[in-house]
């Protein structure tokens, strides 16, 4: 079902329900497992993450801001202690494996890794520069704490199913969490992997789809038809939960509650806004490639009310 904006109705609802610039609406603080204080702190952290992404994009002249900003809240939630990972012991055999499969949104991932202690803040300024450990698409060979290199879409879920199988076989605890973009799910390999995960009853596997409904050159629901991610993953035998993916509390709850069905892998369909947090970028496909000017950066930072973790020369 589409309305006059060309968006599917459910996407449009998410937009309408969201606070200005597509940030998560204030949570009630009632009946959630996660304390309001913790959530507030994480929301402040997410502002800092976004501000730093903008600064990195500006310094590196590297785009993909809508993709990065849409998944910030998911990443902040995961790295707030929900993932069992530690910079002190990044190869711990029983750690959770987090596979960042939407590699083009790397800036957000790098900032969250730095906030979690995996990288020095200063290194974020090298993003996208020659010789940096932080290229515009993440490289495990240069940054060993990563589980995988990414940049070519459609590999993360398949590799995640292999890791899960191997962990089960070795008697390892830990979950496998794969973050994909919705455009990534155009790739057939995602669905080959989805079928495998169901066949092998991988209930400690969680796929999160950053469903911002934006692709490089179009809208996901227009390019792929109107079958929803919920229908698709359900048809592949997964337990499915749809959330507001820019609501940190909702992300935390969903991750805490997985698996949604015993013996089945879990898909979290995270309805997000591309460019969330900056009103003039939100839901604008032009910002998939655009890089902010100095004025636009100032404007965006003022709107966020947060300072980047790296210095931007005046």
């Amino acid at each position, binding site marked *: 079902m589409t309305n006059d904006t060309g968006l599917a109705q459910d996407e449009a609802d998410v937009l309408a329900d969201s606070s200005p610039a597509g940030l998560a609406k204030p949570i009630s603080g009632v009946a959630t497992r996660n304390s309001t204080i913790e959530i507030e702190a994480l929301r402040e952290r997410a502002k800092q993450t976004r501000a730093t992404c903008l600064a990195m994009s500006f310094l590196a002249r590297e785009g993909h801001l809508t993709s990065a900003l849409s998944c910030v809240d998911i990443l902040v939630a995961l790295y707030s202690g929900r993932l069992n990972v530690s910079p002190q012991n990044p190869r711990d055999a029983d750690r959770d494996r987090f596979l960042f499969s939407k590699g083009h949104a790397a800036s957000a991932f790098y900032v969250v890794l730095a906030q979690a202690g995996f990288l020095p803040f200063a290194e974020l300024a090298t993003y996208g520069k020659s010789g940096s450990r932080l290229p515009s698409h993440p490289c495990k060979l240069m940054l060993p704490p990563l589980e995988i*290199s990414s940049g070519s879409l459609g590999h993360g879920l*398949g*590799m995640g199913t292999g890791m899960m199988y191997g962990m089960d076989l070795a008697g390892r605890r830990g979950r496998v969490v794969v973050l994909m973009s919705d455009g990534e799910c155009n790739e057939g390999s995602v669905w*080959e*992997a989805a079928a495998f995960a169901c066949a092998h009853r991988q209930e400690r596997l969680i796929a999160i789809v950053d469903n911002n409904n934006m692709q490089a050159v179009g809208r996901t629901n227009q390019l792929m038809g109107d079958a929803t991610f919920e229908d698709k993953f359900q048809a592949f035998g997964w337990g499915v939960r749809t959330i507001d993916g820019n609501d940190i509390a909702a992300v935390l709850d969903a991750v805490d509650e997985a698996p949604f069905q015993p013996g089945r892998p879990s898909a979290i369909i995270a309805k997000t806004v591309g460019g969330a947090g900056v009103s003039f970028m939100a839901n604008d496909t032009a910002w998939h490639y655009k890089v902010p000017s100095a004025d636009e950066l100032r404007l965006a930072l003022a709107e966020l009310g947060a300072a980047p973790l790296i210095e931007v020369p005046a």
Partner: protein
Amino acid sequence: MRRAFSDALVQIARQDDKVIFLTGDLGFGVFDQFITEFPRRYINVGVAEAQLVDCAAGLALEGWRPIVYSIASFMTGRAYEQIRLAIGYHRLPVLVVGAGGGYTYADAGVTHHAKEDLALMALVANMTVVAPGDPNEVAELMPQLLRGDGPSYIRIGRFGEPRFESAEPIVVGRARFLSRGERIAILTTGGSVIHALRAVEQLGREGIRPTLCHFHTVRPLDQAALGQLDDAGAFVVVEEHGVQGGLAAAVAAWCLENRRAPRVVRLGPGDDLVLGNPKQQQLSREAGFDDNGIAAACRRLWSETRAAA
């Protein structure tokens, strides 16, 4: 070669409990022994080559030693993206197996022709590429590849290929001198070595004695072996592979880089599609790279090189 492969697989799995086998829904009945002994280390991912390779990469990241298996044309062509990035970019020790390489399935139609498998695999970062010539080489090379720390590809044929005996050791990366002669060096890879051995026998009765040097490993190329062929004025390179990116192309490049200028004659299938569903033997006969084709080329070169000398 298929039986040698499945036997070697069981042997290796008994010795190394990290070995895990994944198939793209192929090998009916071939792996029953393996499945009986190691049910959890056997995965049939279905007709899903991308998943076959991505899944294996994930297993390798967890410390397992995956072997992935499908028909060579699908294994190398359809899953190339996954082999290149999930295995190659991640530098993972996955053994990729292409069953029915080259024109093993010539009569099954173009979809099943794998004349580019060696070229594609040789383009993957750090990948070792082997095309054994007989079941003995399959059995010897497989465990060596699985002990290596990088990715590798092995092309295997069908069931029931002949074996040949030689005192030359079977070691990854080292060509085998199967006969030592003069003036002409026949260089082979894969199952073509059987044709070449028969050609050498034929030619011997006529007093023509070429050297036969067999390259079961196409990459890395055994340059030391090529360096021992200084006295040969002509190389006859026999490969069941496309013109580009196979043994002949590698040998020609080596000659230029090393200021060697033998006459290089490539025998093998041509560049065009093979239509009409010929049998493998028929194709090699018609395209001139079977026993008689090799012998004929050698006779021609034998008289030419004598005239030149």
